[in-house]
């Protein structure tokens, strides 16, 4: 699953994290930011690929929310 051309931009990840910080002084290091961007990219790609696999297992031509729902529990447990 490497070579994902798209990915989360570092400024977006930084803003996303900062919105949810409870302490104003918390900052994110540069390397940590890059790793977080990778993590979020993997999260999205995992969700997508697992849903595709579920749809393929059910012999469907389109990935719908039902397939996502079925893979959701394991996905959240893995993250």
């Amino acid at each position, binding site marked *: 699953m490497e070579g994902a051309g798209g990915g989360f931009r570092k400024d977006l990840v930084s803003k996303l*994290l900062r919105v949810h910080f409870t302490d104003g002084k918390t900052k994110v290091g540069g390397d940590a930011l890059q790793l977080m961007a990778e993590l979020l990219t993997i999260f*999205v790609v995992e969700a*997508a690929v697992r849903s595709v696999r579920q749809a393929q297992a059910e012999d469907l031509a389109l990935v719908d929310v039902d397939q996502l729902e079925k893979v959701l529990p394991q996905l959240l447990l893995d993250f």
Partner: protein
Amino acid sequence: MALRRRAPPPDREGTSLERPPEGARGATTWSFALCPPARPVARRRGGKYDALLPATASFCSRAPAGVCPAVMEEEEEGAAEEQQRFSYRQRLKAAVHYTVGCLCEEVASDKEMPFSKQTIAAISELTFRQCETFAKDLEMFARHAKRSTINTEDVKLLARRSNSLLKYITEKNEELTQFNTEQKAKKKKKLEDDNTKSVAAAADKDGS
């Protein structure tokens, strides 16, 4: 996690989505980025996703800021700030939605299996909520280590749940540190080269 659903407004793109019957799972419109905050979402009776969480982050169920002119100054300011914060979150969610859309398009073309719009919307909502959990965890980890800056160790701790994920993140981290040291070495070398060049140039000048 409560995935909120509501029926699509009738003047949406001319798809074949008919208004779903009450309680059934119908099409959701991912309209947070396009519609202003409207009346609270009507809860469907027997809806599957209602009960779990007490209306956290229900981005589509906030009423707009007070309109009555008799509202006190402070309340207005508070409400305006609330509105601003709210629209900031909306913009963030829109940005996440765009990125998620791009990633899903790549996966879809790779596996030759298209995604429905609702799925992409659901994944972006999922990502946004998961980000909140990640952020709080990271902050706690850093605070536990008596730091105020989150570093890579915190991120690695965050990825501990799945072995393959942890391995991947650790490898990425090592790649990153290696890249950084290479960059530093390059910079140092360049600096040294520049120094020697300038020294040589000065010596030439003196000599000639």
